[in-house]
């Protein structure tokens, strides 16, 4: 049918089938700012103004819009001439991945038309219904208020941040400029031509490994004196990719048109465990418009892992692109490519499959028991680490230090506790999506929403029978990843379909498919045993974990090793032991999710530390202060276990934990509220509403030591601007901007003078990808070294042009090269000279970075809660986070990471949980049932950057993205325990779990039988 729509003021007549959504038709007609995030209207990414009302276009038929006005962000402004709303979103850092930004800006436009001076509550109400998984809504709310002021014609102050610090490693104020000491303590020395001293690789200087802190201080300070204050680093620069995102330009995987595109579709298993006895796709293949149907009979059988990790991946090779056995509801059965999504769906219904249904194990305790069905009985599954497929054991991890039992025996008190954490999902608003096609050279191009483009190329190569050199992976802008896209999830099967058809194929998950057949956080049962002395000294800490990896073991060993290695060493002890059994079940596979095992371990550890403090009669924070690690301490487990094998001792060179805790305590009013609130303050009798306050701390790492590697290339243009080519993968975090700021610092320019081209396996150097908190630290080091190499070339040319000065003494600042006597020459003149005039050369730099050190960032987070003791309802009233990420390269972006992380942790603690029925079918399959927080229900939040100087990081930086997701959930649980005087060891803290615990404590006979 023909429909008539006035789109952004222009009347258009479009062809639309009756069943097509307005979303489908708007995008087909080139309005790419309208995004697909779900199919039920819940996420709001697809929202557009229809006759001035913001409604989800995925649940609006195109035909419904016939005769109406539709407005999208394309009407607001272009990247070169942005609307004040877009300006405000960019200035405040409200644009992270940018996927939900267009809908938020339309909501803003409508609100401000009706109400030029909205209150914060009105703003939050107006943004509700547009889910954002990145920002925690703090900066979008700020953006709307700023846009309102701009549109009222008011002057607005520039956005600035003065972070606390930075501090020297021992906590003194520090100002200046320190480079990484990673390879060469003579950091200020320009690199030698033809090479940059790199970090010592495996087998590097062992003395550095155990360098005493005092020596390091000396090195740090000696280095600082030679430098000027930082200009680009530490500034709240706008995101370099911000304008196109704010303008809704076609920047994401799906915002791409190619002739002859086919639509991929997967037929998913309806059974939790079954053998495919017979599969007949002939009727499906015969359907007009179907170009290929692939079953396990049609493609070679190659075992692999979907875990996007460095080669050789430390995960079991227990998957095939298509298999003759299905191991969870949602496992792949067949793949279809057809002319339209409708035909592909119809074809899926025509595939005849005869299953031999097998008994299923849906609980790790069940699958560990004797006689359990064996999930991986195929002979070609290849294990990693200590595994036993006959017992469904994907891997056993053991890491210890000291004599645990002796230390326990010595302890005055040994306290045990068991904790349980749920299966939760990353829920990037952009689902997994891949487009594959043959290019004109017969090479396979994979345009995909991934965190690991280089791993995608290497991992799919043997599956589709092409050498990696014949594959090109392009990473466009990504609508959020959070670990879910550290998985080579659908690229293989999409490429198989292109191989089979010779045509471009697009495969995109629906939201329901995300919940059924993407990855999730490993659920765990954690048993803690802690030995302490009466004076509060921890002497022994033990953690035993049973983890459920689901049907496949992607990240099974590495996630779980983090659970122990990055948690229990947070407290000094004579002896530590971490043991973990990671077990297969017939559930959707778990995988990487921001925090990567630490949120689970931190929940158990940080709840347990409160329990131990309680038993000792100590304040939990005083107890922590007595025991937590400090500068000079060594993570004794890090040597035992790193990426599935032996690692490197990690000495702590920077640690702002003490200040983080102090700031949070002050901000939330911890001491007063510990006294004033809680069951004890009410004489043990619970009022209807009772408040509590609690906190927790955590650490992470910065990259996988000795494994993570990043490369960077930088070159100058005629006008003195630069192109930076990096393998690092910005998934909405702002990595491109941070790396540009780092390079700009070394070159005396700003991030806006650098065009960043990221993650294209043909055009950029290698990088392991966006995971393990590696980008700022590792890729940042590569960007810094490459820029320093280019800077050295510039100094040499400038020295010639200036005369009477040696290259060593030329300084780069404000886009000019300066002699000490104040004479200068512009970057443009240097570039023109070197490209066109004499001794012509391309000024450029290239570098790689790898590190044996993984400096831990630290975080403290506190929450205040109110519990309804009659219903069990928990409401988080406020949350405070303080994070030591070393030097914050861009404080606004760093804050944004923290605000988003604590919001995800808030969900982990209170609402998020994947639930399945007794046959293994996912019940929570949409964003109505799987609840992530909206703008209008957020607690108050405060975020503090506690800057330290990490001597090994680029300009003192450590990682920031992961550590803040760890402590808030246990902080909330600790606050609830303070409120009630009752400890609840399982999250999420649903009303039923909480009320059951209250009734059990009151002897009202409420056995802890769980719902679901």
């Amino acid at each position, binding site marked *: *049918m023909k429909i008539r729509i006035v789109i952004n003021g222009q009347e258009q007549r479009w062809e639309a*089938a*009756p*069943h097509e959504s307005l979303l489908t038709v708007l995008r087909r007609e080139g309005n790419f700012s309208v995004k697909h995030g*779900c*199919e*039920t*209207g*819940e996420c*709001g990414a697809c*929202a557009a103004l229809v006759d001035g*009302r*913001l*409604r*989800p276009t*995925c*649940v*609006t*038929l195109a*035909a*419904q819009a*016939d005769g109406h006005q539709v407005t999208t962000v394309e009407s607001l402004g272009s990247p070169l001439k942005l609307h004040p709303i877009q300006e405000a979103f960019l200035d405040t850092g409200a644009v992270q991945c940018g996927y939900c930004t267009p*809908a938020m800006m339309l*909501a803003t436009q409508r609100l401000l038309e009706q109400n030029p001076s909205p209150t914060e509550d009105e703003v939050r*109400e*107006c943004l*509700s*219904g*547009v889910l954002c998984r990145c920002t925690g809504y703090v900066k979008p709310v700020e953006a709307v208020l700023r846009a309102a002021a701009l549109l009222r014609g008011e002057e607005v102050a520039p956005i600035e941040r003065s972070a606390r610090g930075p501090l020297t490693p021992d906590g003194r104020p520090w100002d200046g400029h320190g480079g990484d000491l990673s390879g060469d303590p003579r950091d200020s020395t320009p690199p030698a031509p033809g090479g940059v001293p790199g970090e010592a690789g495996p087998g590097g200087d062992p003395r550095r490994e155990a360098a005493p802190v005092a020596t390091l201080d000396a090195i740090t300070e000696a280095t600082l004196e030679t430098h000027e204050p930082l200009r680009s680093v530490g500034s709240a620069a706008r995101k370099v990719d911000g304008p196109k995102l704010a303008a809704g330009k076609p920047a994401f995987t799906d915002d791409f048109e190619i002739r002859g595109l086919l639509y991929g579709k997967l037929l998913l298993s309806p059974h939790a465990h079954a053998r495919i006895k017979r599969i007949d796709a002939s009727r499906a293949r015969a359907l007009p418009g179907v170009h290929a149907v692939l079953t396990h009979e049609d493609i070679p059988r190659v075992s692999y892992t979907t875990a996007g990790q460095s080669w050789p991946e430390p995960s079991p090779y227990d998957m095939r692109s298509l298999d003759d056995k299905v191991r969870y509801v949602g496992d792949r059965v067949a793949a279809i490519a057809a002319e339209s*999504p*409708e035909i592909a*769906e119809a074809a899926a*219904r025509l595939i005849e499959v005869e299953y031999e249904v097998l008994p299923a194990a849906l609980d790790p305790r069940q699958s560990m028991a004797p006689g359990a069905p064996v999930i991986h009985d195929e002979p070609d599954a290849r294990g990693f680490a200590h595994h036993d497929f006959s017992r469904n054991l994907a891997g056993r991890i053991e890491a210890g230090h000291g004599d645990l039992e002796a230390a326990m025996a010595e302890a005055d008190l040994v306290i045990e506790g068991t904790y349980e954490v749920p299966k939760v999902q990353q829920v990037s608003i952009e689902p997994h999506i891949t487009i594959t096609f043959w290019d004109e050279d017969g090479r396979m191009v994979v345009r995909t929403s991934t965190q690991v483009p280089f791993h995608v190329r290497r991992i799919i190569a043997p599956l589709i029978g092409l050498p990696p050199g014949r594959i090109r992976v392009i990473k466009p802008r990504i609508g959020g990843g959070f670990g879910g896209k550290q998985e080579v999830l659908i690229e293989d099967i999409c490429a198989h379909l292109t191989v089979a058809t010779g045509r471009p194929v697009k495969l995109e998950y629906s939201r329901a498919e995300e919940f059924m057949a993407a990855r999730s956080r490993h659920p765990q049962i954690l048993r803690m045993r802690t030995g302490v002395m009466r004076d509060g000294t921890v002497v022994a800490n033990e953690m035993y974990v049973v983890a459920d990896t689901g049907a496949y073991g992607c990240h099974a060993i590495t996630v779980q090793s983090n659970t122990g290695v990055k948690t229990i060493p947070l407290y000094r002890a004579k002896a530590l032991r971490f043991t973990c059994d990671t077990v297969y079940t017939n559930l959707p596979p778990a995988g990487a999710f921001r925090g990567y095992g630490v949120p689970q371990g931190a929940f158990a550890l940080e709840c347990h530390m409160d329990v131990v403090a309680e038993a000792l009669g100590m304040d939990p924070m005083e107890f922590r202060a007595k025991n937590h690690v400090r500068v000079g301490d060594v993570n004794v487990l890090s040597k035992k276990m790193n990426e599935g094998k032996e690692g490197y001792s990690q000495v702590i060179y920077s640690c702002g934990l003490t200040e983080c805790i102090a700031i949070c305590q002050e901000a939330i009013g911890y001491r007063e509220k510990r006294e004033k609130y809680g069951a004890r303050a009410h004489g043990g009798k619970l009022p209807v509403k009772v408040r509590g306050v609690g906190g927790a701390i955590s650490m992470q790492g910065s990259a996988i030591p000795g494994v993570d590697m990043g490369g960077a290339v930088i070159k100058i243009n005629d006008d003195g601007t630069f192109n930076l080519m990096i393998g690092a993968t910005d998934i909405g975090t702002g990595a491109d901007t941070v790396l540009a700021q780092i390079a700009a610092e070394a070159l005396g320019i700003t991030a806006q003078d650098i065009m960043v081209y990221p993650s294209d396996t043909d055009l950029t150097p290698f990088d392991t990808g966006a995971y393990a908190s590696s980008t700022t630290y590792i890729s940042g080091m590569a960007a810094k070294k490459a820029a320093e190499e280019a800077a050295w070339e510039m100094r040499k040319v400038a020295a010639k042009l200036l005369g009477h000065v040696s290259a060593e003494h030329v300084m780069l600042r404000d886009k000019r090269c300066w002699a000490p006597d104040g004479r200068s020459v512009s970057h443009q003149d240097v570039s023109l000279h070197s490209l066109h005039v004499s001794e012509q050369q391309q000024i450029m730099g290239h570098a790689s970075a790898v590190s044996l050190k993984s400096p831990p960032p630290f975080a403290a987070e506190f929450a205040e809660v109110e519990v*309804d003791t*009659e*219903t*069990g*309802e928990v*409401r988080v009233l406020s949350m405070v986070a303080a994070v030591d990420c070393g030097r914050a390269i861009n404080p606004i972006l760093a804050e944004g990471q923290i605000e988003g992380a604590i919001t995800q942790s808030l969900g982990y603690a*209170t*609402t998020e949980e994947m*639930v399945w029925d007794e046959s293994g079918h996912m*019940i*929570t399959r*949409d964003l*109505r*049932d799987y*609840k992530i*927080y*909206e703008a*209008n*229900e957020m607690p108050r939040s405060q975020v503090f950057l506690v800057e330290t100087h990490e001597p090994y990081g680029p300009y003192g930086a450590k990682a920031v993205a992961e550590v803040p997701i760890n402590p808030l959930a246990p902080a909330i649980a600790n606050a609830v325990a303070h409120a009630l005087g009752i400890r609840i060891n399982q999250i*999420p803290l*649903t*009303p*039923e779990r909480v*009320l059951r615990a209250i*009734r059990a404590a009151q002897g009202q006979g409420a056995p802890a039988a769980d*719902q*679901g």
Partner: protein
Amino acid sequence: MLSTLREYHRPHTVGEVLELLARPGVRTAILAGGTELAGREDPELEAVVDLAALGLNTVDTGAGGLRLGAAITLQDLMEHPDVLGFAGGLLAAAAKQAAPRTIRQAATLGGTLAGDKGGLEVPTALVALDARLTLAVVDGIRQVAVDEFLAGKGGWLAGALVTEVSLPLPMGGTGAALERVSRSPSDRAIICAAAVLSVDRHGACKAARVAIGGAGAHPGRVPDAEAELVGHPLTSERIAAAAAAVTAAVDPQSDFRASAEYRRWVAPVLVRRALTAAREVESR
């Protein structure tokens, strides 16, 4: 995906809607906001009938009470001054809590009652407000009390179109309140209760309607609780007695949000709170 959908109709009269629904052999669904329909896996749906051109989005306030067109969106419902001013704004509050804002801009009152994704708050509030539905059928119109409708939705909806929801004017001295439990403030309710109370000059309860949603197959009244109140002064003891009557009266089911047992524990709490809040609203 509604890939089998071949026909889209946007008729101007209710009669045309009913004719389209009555066609034999053409699987036809009513389309109001679209939030119930889209995302539904219905591989046989052939036609939809859009209500947008019927003008069923009116709000009329008269001597008989409030008459709401079935196609009014939840957002209009929560913002309309007449709805905000009616019975303490109970229905407006329910509409606000039923769904996120973007969905409220599309979802309609009728769709919320006829479908199954609309949440508990709106139907529970309507039960407490003694709402009646008008349904157009081929041979005329039918009127049905909302709780009766909810109890036999499928039967009432066969070949019928909900055109109007009418709420009788409350007696003088009426207070109303809605209470709910959920995992987070904007999450869908696990269970909710609504109460509408009328009090005479002497402080005695003239009329009471207590409704509960999420504690049975569909939202419904709790007559045993109401009986504890009518004719008595609304003391805390009376309210507690009414709440106590709830436990035996409800027959909840378990789902992933909570067990039946939990709902049974919490139902009387919410009823007590709704009654207490309604009494306070009245006395203001």
